């Protein structure tokens, strides 16, 4: 396959859960990285930045992987 698309056999419900999982993973991963940076630099706001960055990236990833072709 030449793009990041999921296997064509995936049913709608499975895709839905994969989308939710990706969004959740994005928030948790980048929120977590932001939280760790907070602990390192002794700040308080980097968590929120991490969550927003993670959410934005996850939405982008969902569009790339599960969005309609062309």
């Amino acid at each position: 396959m030449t793009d990041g698309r999921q296997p064509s056999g995936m049913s709608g419900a499975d895709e839905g859960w994969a989308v939710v999982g990706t969004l959740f993973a994005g928030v948790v991963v980048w929120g977590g990285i932001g939280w760790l940076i907070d602990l390192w630099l002794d700040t308080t706001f980097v968590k929120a930045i991490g969550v927003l960055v993670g959410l934005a990236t996850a939405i982008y990833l969902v569009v790339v992987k599960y969005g309609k072709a062309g």
Partner: protein
Amino acid sequence: MSASIVLASECPPNDPGFCAPSVLEFFPKPLATFDLFGVHFAITRITVILWIATAVMVWFFIAATRNMQLVPGKRQYFAESGYSIIRDGVAREVIGTEGLRFAPYLASLFFFIVINNIMGIIPFAQIPPTGRFAFPVVLATITYVLFNWVGIRQQGVGPYFKNNLFPAGVPKPLYLLVTPIEFASTFVFRPFTLSVRLFANMLAGHLLLAIFAAGTVYLFTVGNFSVIFAPVSFAMSVVMTFFELLVQVLQAYVFVVLTSAYIAGAMEEAH
């Protein structure tokens, strides 16, 4: 009979109040303990329930496949139907013809989980061993190793990780943001959610049933006007038993379907 007898292991004696069942239900008194290579083992009634349930399931399938006839008898028919639900309905449906190779593992997984889940409503057992976190963790670990192994063997180590961690169609600089998310969602969250989903459903279901059952006994025996609520508690425990049966079978099925989907995903990229 009072509620304190039902929950003898965790209720303070001579306490007139309602002693609600808690997570301690899953930590009963050990029947036998021993140490092996520095690891402490405790055999509890939950372990014995697991052994009996698994033995029953294994016996059933062995007995059903002995002397197989072309025109099946009842036991063989049930065993064949059960195996076919997983082999055709899940393995072939989700993975494709390649999936038939995994049908024995998927069927064993399904029947192991379903029989142990159902122990939650069988009288005298009434606790699902799959509600102890270790069992779903081990099952999810086996699935995790399996789908990664299949993916690596199908595509090679490099391409497998490349396909998983670096989805195509993403401009190169964004990989810095996207790859940790992909890594976490495939290699961290999958085994975690697989195990926690089964564990939490069984834990919660068992506690629900225990609360309604213990509550019914308490409300009947406490001796004041609260007794009018006892039939409500009893009705709820009956309803929840049926609901639990549904959840138990469903969670076993979901575990197996997700395992198949992960295997299918690991194999698909090779086209």
